[in-house]
């Protein structure tokens, strides 16, 4: 029932994740942050089995950091996504695969372009202008099909994000308690209010 969404704009990537930490029918927490910063410009959002999610995300984060310390460079969003996909695909054919879905959102400082990668628990990696995980995808992708353009400004992206959240609140039978919205651009990653 978790929800992750990302969209690229003119010079930024905007992401939304729900903030409910649930198990079965119980909501434990309403302010869970389901994202990790892989480096200054790359954000990874995760959903799936609790435990698996944070374990896998931290494993990726620390290996990305290790590579960057060893080689003295910042990995691009594409490089982190390719690495993450490979780890996920390897895990798929192991004794106990990770049950984690990911969005990798980032800003490539080398080319000054925003990037968004959709990775599922099987290790499918696809780059998209906008992407979503969970049941929320069925409600929000249609809105993005209608309103999203590759060159939207941050204000326009915020307006579309608002529309998506409104749609979930009116049409999704589960009341997702809250959403965290983050932006990755040339200045790094920050949380914003919409």
């Amino acid at each position, binding site marked *: 029932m978790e929800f992750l969404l990302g969209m690229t704009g003119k010079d930024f990537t905007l992401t939304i994740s729900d903030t409910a930490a649930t198990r079965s029918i119980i909501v434990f927490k309403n302010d869970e942050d389901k994202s990790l910063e892989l480096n200054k410009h790359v954000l990874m959002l995760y959903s799936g089995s609790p435990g698996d999610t944070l374990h896998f995300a931290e494993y990726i984060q620390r290996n990305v950091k290790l590579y960057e310390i060893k080689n003295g460079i910042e990995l691009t969003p594409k490089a982190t996504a390719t690495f993450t996909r490979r780890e996920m695909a390897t895990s798929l054919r192991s004794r106990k695969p990770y049950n984690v879905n990911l969005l990798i959102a980032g800003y490539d400082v080398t080319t000054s372009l925003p990037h968004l990668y959709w990775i599922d628990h099987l*290790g*499918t990696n*696809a780059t998209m202008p906008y992407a979503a995980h969970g049941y929320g*995808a069925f409600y929000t*992708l249609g809105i993005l099909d209608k309103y999203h353009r590759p060159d939207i400004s941050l204000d326009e992206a915020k307006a579309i994000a608002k529309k998506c959240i409104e749609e979930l609140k009116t049409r999704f039978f589960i009341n997702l308690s809250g959403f965290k919205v983050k932006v990755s651009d040339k200045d790094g990653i920050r949380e914003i209010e919409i």
Partner: protein
Amino acid sequence: MDYNGGTVLAMAGKNCVVVGSDKRLGVQNLTLSTEFQKVFPVTEKCYIALPGLATDVQTLSELFRLKCNMYKLREEREIEPLTLANMISSTLYGRRFGPYFCEPIIAGLDKNNKPHIYGMDLIGCLNFPDDFAVAGCAEAALFGMCESLWEPDLEPDELFETASQALLSAADRNSIVGWGAVIHTM
């Protein structure tokens, strides 16, 4: 095989060959991307088409890229289509009891510019057709289209048109196939 959608075909003509695929990536009936690559270049005159489970499409494309680059470095020449087909076949059979869910098609021209087309199942059982090879979610529809449209000794332009019409018509009859297509002519 029907989880992510997608289908591919290859056709032989007179000293030419084409290979193509649709561009959709979905999860069952939800379309996620319409720019998903399923046909991968190996050399200037040889391509691999990989329909099936998207994660295995990507894993295999990376694996075959590695193997072909290593071949080129060791042998100091480009790999021939038949050699490539046998390499792919034995790679897939190496996972006989836990297979990659992918049915590759190889299409290319050899050093004498003779067309070659190979198809195989997910555990690497090779097929050697002289006319066309099809695989993926719209396989059945593609067989029908290719059977009625293909004829021997087509020129590159005619072959491109034949393959395009076969692919688009088959894709239109399948809800998890389509959303754009790509054809490579050699």
